[in-house]
């Protein structure tokens, strides 16, 4: 990844803009004064100890969680109570979950074509054609007729990625996509994500895969206790962390 392209992406106007955002779960203040600008085509890795609010942060971006204070603007649309805005944003933002969350009663092909047919109103034949091209991109077109329960974890996660891509999203959110996988399957999922990154997709990835962060991220964000503690390009983040808590976290995850 050359340095020029990283800078270029920062200069464009932001596709996601979060200002002074707070969120509570009951009395628990889970996100505190979050400010984050994401440029078009920018790739951000978010890491931090468990309970630091990193998953909650990206779940606020497509309103799986509701924030109580501050603004979140995605592609010029502000996230408010307005259900229409939420639906618009959700159809532009893809999400991949730790537990895959494929629909077990539908075949792989039906999983992947469901949203294009019902949300985008695509004719079935066209949706299936597009679905097959994405399944080829994640390298499992031969599994199209199977049910998710018949696939390995790595294959299921790749189907989940294809399912999101079929909506032609502008932004992809990844919530610990490899944490539930057996070690030998992590690479096949990361390879798909790296390829996606190279195609210029805007990506926010919550992960502890530091190799992935180094390879594709423009910025690494470290969160702890509901706050953004530090944000740096990956090289600086790993080699020269500024904050003590970052140093402690890095020493814990890198030395085992």
């Amino acid at each position, binding site marked *: 990844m050359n340095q020029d392209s990283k800078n270029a992406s920062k200069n464009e106007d932001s596709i996601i803009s979060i200002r002074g955002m707070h969120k509570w779960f009951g009395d628990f203040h889970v996100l505190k004064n979050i400010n984050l600008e994401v440029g078009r085509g920018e790739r951000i890795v978010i890491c931090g100890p468990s309970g630091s609010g990193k998953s909650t942060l990206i779940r606020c971006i*497509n309103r*799986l969680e509701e924030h109580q204070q501050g603004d979140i603007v995605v592609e010029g649309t502000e996230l408010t109570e307005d259900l229409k805005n939420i*639906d618009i944003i*959700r*159809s532009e*933002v*893809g*999400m991949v*979950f730790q*537990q895959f*969350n*494929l*629909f*077990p*009663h539908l075949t792989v092909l039906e999983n992947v074509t*469901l*949203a294009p047919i*019902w*949300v985008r109103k695509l004719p079935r034949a066209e949706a299936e054609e597009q679905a097959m091209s994405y399944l080829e991109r994640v390298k499992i077109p031969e599994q199209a007729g199977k*049910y*998710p*329960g*018949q696939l390995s974890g790595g294959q299921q996660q790749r189907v989940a990625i294809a*399912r*999101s891509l079929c*909506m032609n999203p502008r932004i992809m959110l990844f919530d610990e996509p490899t944490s539930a996988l057996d070690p030998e399957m992590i690479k096949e999922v990361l390879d798909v994500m790296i390829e996606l990154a190279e195609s210029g997709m805007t990506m926010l990835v919550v992960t502890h895969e530091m190799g992935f962060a180094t390879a594709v991220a423009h910025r690494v964000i470290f969160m702890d206790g509901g706050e953004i503690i530090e944000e740096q390009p990956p090289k600086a983040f790993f080699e020269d962390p500024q904050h003590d808590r970052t140093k402690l976290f890095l020493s814990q995850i890198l030395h085992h």
Partner: protein
Amino acid sequence: MTKSFNPQSYEPGTHPDLPPPTITTGLIGWIKTNLFSTPLNTALTLISLWFLWQILPSSIHWLFTGAVWSAVDRKECWAMMDAPRDGACWAFIRGSLELFLYGWYPEPERWRVNLTFVLFGAAVFGALRENIPGKKYWLIFAAVFPFLAAWLLFGGFGLEPVPTGKLGGILLTLVVAVTGISFSLPLGIALALGRRSRLPVLRAICVIFIEFIRGVPLITLLFVASTMLTYFLPPGSSFDLLMRVLIMVTLFAAAYIAEVVRGGLQGLSSGQYEAADALGLTYWQSHRLIILPQALKISIPGIVNTFIGSYKDSVLVLIIGMMDILGLGRARLNDPDWLGLAPELYIFISLFFFVSCFAMARYSLSLEKKLETGHQT
């Protein structure tokens, strides 16, 4: 360490797949492991065999070999036996079959009942059968069937009207049960969704309705239907008794279905809702395509259990004087020609209910198997 009974040894990584030990397979193996595995089991097996030996011959004699199949009354029946009551008098059931089937439905109009039975069979077949050409039209037909049946049975719109009081026997039982079953499912699903709604008023209405209906015995509701409802309705309006009973039976079953379906909805992981939301599906789309198909699949045993329960509970209508198969049969026992043939009657009625309930239970098992896609949600 247990001693190894396989003297052969293999190099690591070359162990072949071996067949299981033969002692546990085959007929002999089955008998050994299931009937004679311990002294206690052996004793129980022998006692059971002795017991069967004692009751089977006389049962078979009474039910089949010593039974009389055609006679005009009980006296003739008994005259044909070695001793009175030595065998079953099935002539009683045969002679009453028409009454049991149609109740007092007027003779010249009975073709309408027969047609309804045939259409009912077709609707059940078309709705339940998978891989049938034109499945969509079968489903539409099954959905329209209850209304079609109501028109056929009660008349109007060109057919001779038949008062609902003329219905009786198996016809009445099926009308009550099928109405209860087919309307309680959609109503129950709606109540279950309402109970999980974010709108507090809707939720409260559903909770109160479900808890009230579940908290009152069905017989009480039937008495309410037969006596009290007339006080609540505007004076002069006549609301048919059968109609009131059908509504009560449906509401009663719906409350139970609602709780079963709610259990199914809670059995789904929140990830399914989130994935559907994240793809931009609306509330109705995600429920129709993602949530309900899975929740109903989990709920099948409970739903069928409720169906079987409400099917059998339909006999309770005899308490408010409606002559379903049980009520009509009991009335028939007082007929001087057939006085005192209660065992024959109750065996027949038991068999009728058992066959239909067993069919439902088997269908639900096969449905569960068919919907299994190798994934636990």
